[in-house]
Each structure stands twice: as C-alpha cells, then as structure tokens.
C-alpha cells in the first residue's frame, strides 16, 4: 500500500467514533441517518466522519435518489483466502513474541 493511502487509513481509524461506524458498517450497509442516531452523532458530524472513512478506503457510498447509503469497503472485509492469511499473520506475531520471550529468558536463567 502507498504511504499516502496508509496515512489516510490510519487517520480514518484514529478516532473512536469512526471505529464505531466501521463496526456498524461491518454488519451491513446503512444510511447516514441510520448511522448517526445510535452513535449519538449529529448528521453533519456523521457526514464528516464518513467522508474520512471513505477517503481512508474503509467505506464506500452510493447515492440513490436523495439517500446516500454507506457500506464497508469490500476489500476491508476478508475473503476466505484472506482469512487464512490472517491466521498466518497471527502466527507471525505470536512467533515475534516467542523470539522475544526466548531472548528475555535465556537458556541458563530459564532452567534455574
């Protein structure tokens, strides 16, 4: 991913209200009104946050008539293959911790 795109994604995720919106969208598409009310947001504020999510590549919107509907960027939702990749990623971070733990507790110390 390009650094600029990554920056925008981090910015999009750096706010708890925006993360709340992403969580809501991961359960299905919704309109601004449907998103704002449970999040206790005013409409203009919700629109602003959603714009940041869209720019961060995490959400997409579609306007039908006067209603704009937001949904999660399909790429952000894992495909089957990505699910396996995510397990691989989980192992990789576990093995980072394994290497660190072995370093922290060298052979002699851990056998005492």
């Amino acid at each position, binding site marked *: 991913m390009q650094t600029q795109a990554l920056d925008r994604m981090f910015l999009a995720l750096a706010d708890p209200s925006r993360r709340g919106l992403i969580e809501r969208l*991961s359960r299905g598409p919704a309109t601004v009104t449907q998103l704002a009310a449970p999040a206790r947001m005013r409409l203009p504020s919700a629109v602003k946050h959603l714009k940041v999510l869209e720019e961060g590549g995490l959400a997409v919107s579609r306007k039908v008539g006067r209603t704009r509907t937001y949904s999660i960027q399909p790429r952000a939702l894992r495909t089957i293959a990505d*699910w396996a990749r995510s397990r691989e990623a989980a192992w990789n971070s576990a093995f980072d911790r394994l290497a660190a733990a072995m370093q922290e507790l060298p052979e002699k110390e851990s056998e005492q």
Partner: protein
Amino acid sequence: MKTVEIEHTTFVIERELPGSPRHAFRFWSDPDLKQRWAGCHADWTVLDERFDFRAGGAEVKRWRTPEGDELTFHAHYLDIVPERRIIYAYEMSFKGERLSASLVTIELMPSKTLTRMKFTEQAVFLMGGAAREQRVMGTEQGFDRLLEAVAAETAEVC
C-alpha cells in the same frame, strides 16, 4: 440448510529463534513458557484450560469474548520428538460451530547458536454462518490490532 464452503490451505512460516533447539522446544512444551508468547488476548476470559503435552495428550482452551461468545481451541498431540519435532491436530470453534481444523508440524533445527523453526499448518476452513460472523468480528479485531501495533511503537501491549 446452511451452505458451508470448504477451503484447504497450507502455509509455512520459517523463523530463526534465539537459543538452542532445546531452549526453543521448552517454549512449546512448558505451559508457563508457552503462555508467555502464545496467549495474547487480554480482553478474553479464560473459561477452561488444559495442557497435556505428550503424544496422545490434549490441549484445550475455552474463552469468552467481551461480546459474550464462546471460542474454543482443541488440540491433540500426535507426535513429539523432544528438541526436534512436534505434530498436532487442532480445531477452532466459535459459538459451538467449527471454524477450522488443522494439522500442524513444527520442526526445530540447529543453526550455529540459533534455532531454525519451520512451522507448517495444513488447514481446512469451514465457512458457514458462525464463520462468517467470526470473520466480521475478526475484521473489527484486525482494526484494533492495527491500532495496537501503532501504539506498540511507544508502549508494549502484550
């Protein structure tokens, strides 16, 4: 009737670990040492934990997520050669529904003063209803992890 998609995947991870194969092996065989790196879900409540590290023995973990859903890990050790090899089969379930079943082979090889570890997982992913739900949850966790990773640059998380 629910549609269940089946996906077979194999992945291999090779790592150099600090210390001898004997040392590395202990971080798989000793429950306290394994806990130091394998468990890292601060917000999951442990409901059940069993660790019987021997061929024919089982390792079981059962958690409750903050959302109140149950997740289980059930492993069965098939082959153990101290300091050299561990083979086990395991399954993961979410809310009582199977998500995946795997065969894992861990090979430890000496490499000068270090250990070369080769981890191979042959997995079957069962993508039914619960799997889909877990996948969405996983996505949310993914975002949390991403943020944690950023935070970890300034502070240790796990």
